[in-house]
């Protein structure tokens, strides 16, 4: 499989009122063609910052690029000028955001908002862009597209707005679609529809997707590979099967343990991860998870573990994988039920 995007050792900081918050600290991952990569983590883990920095959408200041590279099509996006980025945004890489209620311009018709990028990137006439807009709305499953295209966002429901956002994002057939928690703000039934739509469209168009989420249900539904982020670092990556069936990082265990399962006994409690994420203005020297890790060792406090390669696709950064560490089994709570997570591909 061909890599379409490589993020190497990316670091991003934010200057805040009293300190420099190191939101992303040396993140490395890649995205293959036509696949869906899920970046999972709790709020503050740096996943959204990572996503937005691929588009170079981090406002600087207060944001600050500290180091690393983002290679797309053999070129480093971090070195591109604003003008050069304009020709990549919306055309090669596009993005949809968490809250469809606020991510559409309230004073502009949906049609105009779709047409904008078509006119900019494909030199379409207004009329042609309008025509294409109707097709796109149809493609994302909005009924009566020729009426809907002239309406304003407030006339759409939440789910329809997210569909419209997807139509805008896919207008110029981008190679990569970054979806930043696209279903978090939606009702559960609508969530499933939107995920189905994204999977369908991916099969039709072959767009690679980076799905930012904190919801393992979404991951199971749509992702091929997973990167688990914690405290501004990727702590474990692997295929979706590896992450669900052979997780090796205690944080991944915690995430899996806190996910409700259908076969779970009702009086069995969900396993919460105690404690709170590290303060990134003052990040720990060693493993970011040490303070909350039930298996923490002396070494974890002061030394960041290197990645251990567990397979061609799975890599985990944890001292437990060191030969000198005590052997620890995957805890009961992190074992996902008997059936395969999904069989759609």
């Amino acid at each position, binding site marked *: 499989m061909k890599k379409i995007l490589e993020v190497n050792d990316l670091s991003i900081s934010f200057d805040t009122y009293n300190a420099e918050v190191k939101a992303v600290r040396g993140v490395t991952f890649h995205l293959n063609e036509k696949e869906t990569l899920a970046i999972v983590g709790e709020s503050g883990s740096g996943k959204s910052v990572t996503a937005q920095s691929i588009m170079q959408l981090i406002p600087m200041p207060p944001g600050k690029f500290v180091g690393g590279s983002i290679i797309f099509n053999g070129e480093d996006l971090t070195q591109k000028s604003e003008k050069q980025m304009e020709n990549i945004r919306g055309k090669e890489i596009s993005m949809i955001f968490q809250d469809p209620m606020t991510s559409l311009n309230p004073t502009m018709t949906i049609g105009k908002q779709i047409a904008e990028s078509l006119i900019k990137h494909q030199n379409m006439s207004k009329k042609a862009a309008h025509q294409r807009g109707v097709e796109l709305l149809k493609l994302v499953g909005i009924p009566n597209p020729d009426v809907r295209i002239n309406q304003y966002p407030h006339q759409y429901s939440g789910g329809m707005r997210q569909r419209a956002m997807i139509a805008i994002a896919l207008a110029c057939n981008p190679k990569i679609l970054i979806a930043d928690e696209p279903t978090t703000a939606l009702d559960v039934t609508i969530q499933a529809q939107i995920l189905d739509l994204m999977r369908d469209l991916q099969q039709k168009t072959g767009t690679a997707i980076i799905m930012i989420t904190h919801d393992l249900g979404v991951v199971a539904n749509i992702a091929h590979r997973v990167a688990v982020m914690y405290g501004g670092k990727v702590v474990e990556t692997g295929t979706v099967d590896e992450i669900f069936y052979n997780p090796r990082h205690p944080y991944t265990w915690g995430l899996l343990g806190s996910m409700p399962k259908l076969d779970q006994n009702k009086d069995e409690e969900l396993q919460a991860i105690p404690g709170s994420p590290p303060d990134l*203005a003052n990040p720990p020297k060693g493993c970011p998870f040490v303070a909350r890790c039930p298996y923490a060792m002396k070494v974890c406090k002061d030394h960041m*573990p290197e990645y251990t390669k567990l397979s061609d696709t799975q890599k985990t950064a944890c001292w437990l994988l060191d030969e000198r560490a005590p052997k620890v089994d995957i805890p009961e709570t992190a074992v996902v039920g008997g059936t395969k997570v999904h069989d759609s591909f």
Partner: protein
Amino acid sequence: MSQVQLRDSDFESIQIDQKETEKISGQSTSYWKDAWRRFRKNKLALAGVIIIILLAFMALFGESISGQNYRDNDLMNANKPPSSEHWFGTDNLGRDIFARTWYGAKISLFIGLMASLIDLVIGVIWGAVAGFFGGKIDEYMMRIADVLYSVPYLLVVILLMVIMPQGLWTLIIAMTITGWINMARIVRGQVMQLRSEEYVMAAKSLGASNARLLFKHLVPNTMGPIIVTLTLTIPSAIFTEAFLSYLGLGVPAPKASWGTMSSDALASFQYYPYQLFFPAFFICLTMLAFNIVGDGLRDALDPKERK
């Protein structure tokens, strides 16, 4: 695997104290302390505070510093430019402008402060009652405020000045008769918003009484906007006083305010610009000082607004 030399003992498990990790990192400070810290960093606002203190000091004691007084006529020395004897010069009746400026400061600041304080009292009570009880009471109280508000403020004040005998308190009463509405609206809005907020609901569900709610939760939380509004009402009251003086509706002689002084100097300002300069300058300086302090307070007290 790693460049550092690790000993086996490094791989011993350790117990992490969960309480330790639950501690909130970073200094947690109280709302007022935090606000003060932010305000202190605002150099412009601090300068405003210093100007206000100086102006207040001069209003109290400045009148006689130069050894002159504000009401002695001396027609032989009329319209004299600033000199070592008359620091700010003399007016058309030969009165010392320096002494008059600080006497006027007393009147102008008194009117500004008094009008703002009366606005504060009426506005806070009206707004808090309307906001706290809501429903019909709120509807009627706010309908009254809306009707009063739909007539331009200065128009109302002028009409009232026409029918009342001229005087210091007439001015203050005229200015406050509809001036409190702004404060009432702000307080009501805050109270309404806070009333629906979760921590108040939580306190209520825990059985806190209305009075306790009002003073423990609502009052401290509405203090910020109230202080800001108060600070910004003072310059607008000083403006209104000067405005009315320009129309000949100010405090009657022999009393003088910055407004009446500038109004008197207007007729001959082509020949004696300094007579207009001093009172006009201090009107602007006072308004400027209160405005920047008000802005600074708003930034300090409302972290959400901070840009």
